[in-house]
């Protein structure tokens, strides 16, 4: 029998060494694969109270995922790199930021999006791009009624929370409510409309709708007018900073009536403008979001890590962006690709709620996002008590019924 020598011994040794080298190199190549995600958000200006914490939250999630081994796609492991651009909550700036991310940086996954005007501008063209858009805090309903296949949103629309808020206010027995807010912003108006519908069912009404703009800081004329109408309560809907001035100036005008709000500001953000005494008793009726008393284990850990890294408390809405990245990770791993954005977008609508998320989602048919690309969280009633937002109770919210309603809209 011929003695086949497959190869000489020294050659065999070299081949083994080469194979080992190639394996090592292969492993290191896999480890070095990078998935760049973009963030378009308000990092400066009035919207920065929401946008900057969102951008921070995405970076924090990326670091956590990288430390935990990255995103696994077949044999490859992707480490996440984040590029963040400031859209100043401005539609034109947001369009430019996203165009830059897609065209120049080659980014396929874009996160952030705290504010409705800028988000709607990007949503209007994202359908035509090979990219996936994950919307955070922007609450305008129409963002997820356009049936854009490559867009999902972690925050529920404003009127989903407004409905629950209206029921809560009616239950408190207040009949004549005066509204002061950024009512020229669509989603705030939608929230108030939902509140009004629920109030009417209980025999209540909205007796005034006064407006302030994002840059307004003196709301005493509107409050004086409202005071003259003797309402049972006021409802303040708007960004944190002007809302904080409303709460402060209402006290200065001697308005000793219940104050309800829809603002999602942290204690720190409010205390830059008002005192704790001026805030005492104020209600915030909103998605449960991040408040330590209502937070899950993930929420508590998120709060601690964020505070440690950024030396500031996270805003209650910032986990919407944090959760985006974990949802994206789950979808990419489920789709088994980073390049096929269509497959990843489809996967987003099929994944269950990932275990790492912070917000308390109410899945529809077991899925994090419904067929509209919309996720739902629970709503809660929070009250300012002795310097802190205290979670008082859950507000009744039916995510499945709302999801069906949303599907009927265009």
């Amino acid at each position, binding site marked *: 029998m011929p003695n086949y020598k497959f190869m000489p011994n020294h050659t065999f040794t070299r081949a083994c060494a080469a194979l080992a080298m190639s394996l090592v190199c292969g492993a290191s190549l896999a480890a070095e694969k990078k998935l760049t995600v973009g963030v378009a958000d308000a990092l400066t*200006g009035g919207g920065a109270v929401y946008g900057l914490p969102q951008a921070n939250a995405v970076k924090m999630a990326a670091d956590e995922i990288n430390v935990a081994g990255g995103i696994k796609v077949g044999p490859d492991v992707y480490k996440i790199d984040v590029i963040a651009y400031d859209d100043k909550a401005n539609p034109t700036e947001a369009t430019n930021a996203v165009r830059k991310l897609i065209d120049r940086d080659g980014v396929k996954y874009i996160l952030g999006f705290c504010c409705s005007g800028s988000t709607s501008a990007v949503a209007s063209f994202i359908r035509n791009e090979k990219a996936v858009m994950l919307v955070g805090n922007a609450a305008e309903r129409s963002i997820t009624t356009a049936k854009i296949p490559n867009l999902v949103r972690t925050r529920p629309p404003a009127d989903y929370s407004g409905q629950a808020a209206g029921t809560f206010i009616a239950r408190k027995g207040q009949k004549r409510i005066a509204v002061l807010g950024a009512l020229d912003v669509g989603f705030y108006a939608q929230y108030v409309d939902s509140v009004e519908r629920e109030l009417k069912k209980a025999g209540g009404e909205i007796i005034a709708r*006064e407006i302030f703009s994002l840059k307004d800081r*003196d709301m005493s004329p*509107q409050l004086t007018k409202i005071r003259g109408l003797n309402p049972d309560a006021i409802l303040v809907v708007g960004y944190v900073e002007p809302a904080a*001035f409303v709460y402060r100036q209402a*006290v200065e*005008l001697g308005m000793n009536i219940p104050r309800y709000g829809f603002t999602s500001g942290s204690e720190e953000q409010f205390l830059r*403008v008002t005192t704790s*005494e001026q805030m005492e008793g104020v209600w915030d009726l909103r998605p449960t979001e991040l408040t330590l008393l209502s937070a899950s284990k993930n929420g508590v850990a998120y709060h601690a890590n964020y505070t440690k890294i950024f030396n500031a408390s996270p805003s209650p809405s910032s986990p919407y962006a944090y959760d985006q990245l974990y949802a994206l990770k789950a979808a990419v791993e489920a789709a088994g690709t980073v390049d096929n954005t269509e497959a990843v977008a489809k996967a987003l609508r099929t994944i269950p709620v990932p275990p790492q998320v912070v917000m308390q989602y109410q899945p529809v048919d077991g899925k994090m996002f419904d067929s509209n690309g919309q996720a739902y969280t629970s709503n809660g009633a929070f009250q300012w008590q002795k310097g802190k937002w205290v979670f008082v109770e859950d507000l009744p919210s039916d995510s499945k019924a709302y999801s069906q309603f949303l599907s009927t809209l265009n």
Partner: protein
Amino acid sequence: MLIEILQQTINGLAIGGVYVLIALGLTTVFGILGIAHFAHGSVSMSGGYLTYFLVTAQGLPLLAAIPAALAAGFLLGVLVEMLAYRPVRHANHINAFIVALGLTMMVEGINLQLFGHEQVVIPTGLNRVFRLGGITVPELRLYVIIAAILLVVAMMIFVERTKTGQAIRAVAENRDAAILMGVNVKTIPLIVFGMSTALGVAAGIMVGALFAIAPGIGEGLVVKGFAVLILGGLGSFPGAILGGTVLGITESIAAGFISSGYKDVIAFVVMIIVLLIRPQGLLGRAP
């Protein structure tokens, strides 16, 4: 109804006081030197930021921080005149205009770099509320109104009763005659800019305490300041006082009785109506 009108008047007086101080600074510079000092709002806000810094970061009491900021404001005004406007004083008017715009951008940029993009509120601890019948007057607003009145009175006394004030008025009336009378016309612009900026800083502190200071606030305020100037009459001190007060109260009453959404629009409509009837402004001199 009467109570609401009185309350809106009180509300408007505080912001009117801020407009008066801004407009007085602008009218002094414009009336005497003929410069439309667009950077005035941004420079004023720097004083507000400085006060915030002295109180929060340096732990200075507010009553010590305010004079320090006013003094710094005076010096800043002197520097602005020396470094920015003096070199273009004899050039075409467009040069001073461009310098003013450039200065606005520069000061806004410096404020942004030093103090960040977030709004800041100067802590005062003045949270009491005084009640008189159905009218409420927050302690802070009351002090702002009183401080504005005191500053206006001090300014009027300075201009009317002191030798330097007389020299300033002389230069405003007839520069050549003032030179012949031995007035040192080189130092007058320095004093005017110093005073004007100190008044602006006072307004910046008031805005920072009552509301908030943030990028862009100064630019908005200077637009209102020029509106007051036109409403009251260009170069007229009493006009600036009357114009600022009228604008503040009009804004407040318009927001309360017509619509808060048209607060600014209504105020400017009033200005246009006044100018249609009196093109020279409420207290301006007819050409």
